[in-house]
């Protein structure tokens, strides 16, 4: 056998093993996509199908016995829409505050000529690893600041987030050359003017990343609301959702005059619809802004 023949045979063997590898991998990938998407797809078709068919397990691929009763009921639930409004408000204000406090700190900590840089960094990073815990935080907020059941408790106390600071600082470290500050300084530009007129316009990418993270975080959170809010008219969407989905508030109050099982099915229809209504904004927005999210994670992956 000549040398050429031998390499040729090796190449054929390699191509064959690569083909098998590809087949297995793509099959697995398709399976994973189905596993990831099907539950969400099911929620959507179940929300417009006849609840009796859903309960019997007849609805698996396509909606049947199409009904909009669930959505009709949802639109008449005023607490859901109050929650929606509250969440939009908390998300807008909360995101603005988060940007306003975290981005400047991140920039300042990226400055090598800052006296006390290590100390300030420690000040902001330490709470990532150690904290007072739920009860002391609750007592301080309640007894000292009297913030229980106010608008501000939802947007202010937990707005400094060490992780955002680290990610943004890494961005500033790698994307703002020292020469830029040197040049600005020679031209007589002070720190504040430099930050607001030069740094911020150059950092739209990281601002978008942090803004999106913060917005999703606010939209999806229920914990702080559950701990610190008392009056239902301040409840954010997720807390209303908890009452509908977990505490089963619907099944007790929903359509009257039918057997328990029937009430339960109608309540499920409303639950499926509520899931769609509450998750729609983020799910539809996500594919368009996903590149910012990924960018953020990747910036965070670089070591500051």
């Amino acid at each position, binding site marked *: 056998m000549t040398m050429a023949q031998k390499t040729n045979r090796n190449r054929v063997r390699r191509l064959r093993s690569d083909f098998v590898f590809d087949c297995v991998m793509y099959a697995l990938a398709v399976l994973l996509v189905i596993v990831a998407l099907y539950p969400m797809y099911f929620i959507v078709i179940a929300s417009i199908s006849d609840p009796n068919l859903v309960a019997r397990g007849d609805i698996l691929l396509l909606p049947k016995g199409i009904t909009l009763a669930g959505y009709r009921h949802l639109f008449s639930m005023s607490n859901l829409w109050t929650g929606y409004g509250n969440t939009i408000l908390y998300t807008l204000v909360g995101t603005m505050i988060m940007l306003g406090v975290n981005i400047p700190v991140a920039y300042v900590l990226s400055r090598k000529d800052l006296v006390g840089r290590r100390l300030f960094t420690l000040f902001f990073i330490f709470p990532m690893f150690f904290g007072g815990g739920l009860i002391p935080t609750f007592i301080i907020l309640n*007894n000292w600041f009297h913030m229980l059941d106010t608008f501000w408790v939802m947007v202010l106390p937990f707005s400094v987030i060490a992780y955002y600071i680290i990610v943004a600082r890494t961005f500033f470290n790698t994307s703002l050359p020292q020469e830029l500050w040197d040049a600005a300084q020679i031209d007589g530009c002070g720190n504040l003017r430099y930050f607001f007129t030069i740094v911020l316009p150059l950092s739209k990418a990281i601002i978008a990343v942090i803004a999106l993270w913060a917005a999703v975080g606010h939209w999806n959170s229920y914990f702080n609301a559950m701990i610190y809010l008392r009056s239902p008219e301040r409840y954010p969407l997720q807390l209303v959702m908890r009452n509908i989905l977990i505490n089963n508030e619907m099944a007790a109050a929903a359509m009257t005059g039918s057997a328990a099982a029937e009430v339960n099915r109608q309540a499920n229809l409303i639950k499926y619809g509520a899931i769609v209504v509450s998750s729609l904004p983020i799910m539809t927005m996500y594919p368009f802004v996903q590149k910012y999210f990924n960018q953020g994670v990747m910036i965070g992956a670089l070591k500051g």
Partner: protein
Amino acid sequence: MALMKRQSRNLTWIRIKRNWGLYLLMVPAIIIFICFTYLPMYGVIIAFKNFKPAQGIWGSSWAGLKYFERYFSSYMFSNTIRNTLVISIYTIAVTFPLPIFLALMCNQMYARRFKKFFQVSTYLPHFISTVVMCGMIILFLSPSSGVIPKLCSMVGIRTGDLMGNANAFSSIYVWTEAWQHVGWDSIMYIAALSAVDPQLYEAAVVDGANKWQKMRYIDIPMLIPTAVTLFILRSGSVMSVGFEKVYLLQNDLNIASSEIISTYVYKMGLQSNQYSYSAAIGLFNNVVNFVLLLTVNQIARRMGDTSLF
């Protein structure tokens, strides 16, 4: 010598004064952090006191280690710790390797559009809120109308009431967690893989490596530093399982395996108003976490050059 020292101190002072704007920029964050993060750290002393709201944090009488002893000797101690550890270690065992696996797969895909689609669809569940996620779990697992018991019965498996089964709780928690976050967690590894020098692959092809071998000898070694860093971070929080999801999935039937430290702290503190007792449990938990993080970090530093600090 003294002169030099004074001069350098002066210099520092000048540098501080010149950069006053920078300090100003940090003021809002510092105030918020002191008020709402560092003051609660001071508030943690209520764990050593008989805290009564009327007497305030400082005014309440000292209790010493009474509340710690009470927790250590209560039957909930071993219960909560066992449940926390089971859920946490199970979660790490499943959700730590899977993203690596997914990233390796993603890196092998050459059909660009499919790759994009694959990424978007595996990331998507990450954006479902905890409340909605738990609502979905409960709906899907419902014995009377859920889709999963229906699918299982089609292939002849009787599941029964999964949410009411204490033995199933940790599996439900962990695998839904995997469903939701594995795709998203793989981004970090995909980023690390995209930094691989293409020449390495070319060289491997010249040497006759097939795809499997390229993955085994190039991709996997490339991921190890990222994996170690993430592993340190994860194992530092082995004693802290997220409150939010466990609390929502809890019910009277599965409480035996779903009562973890953080849910117990919440119930003791804010539902039964035993502030000091609950703060003591929380503090104990935090200290254990902190010590764990430092230990793992030390070990990692000894073994290789990867460490957090």
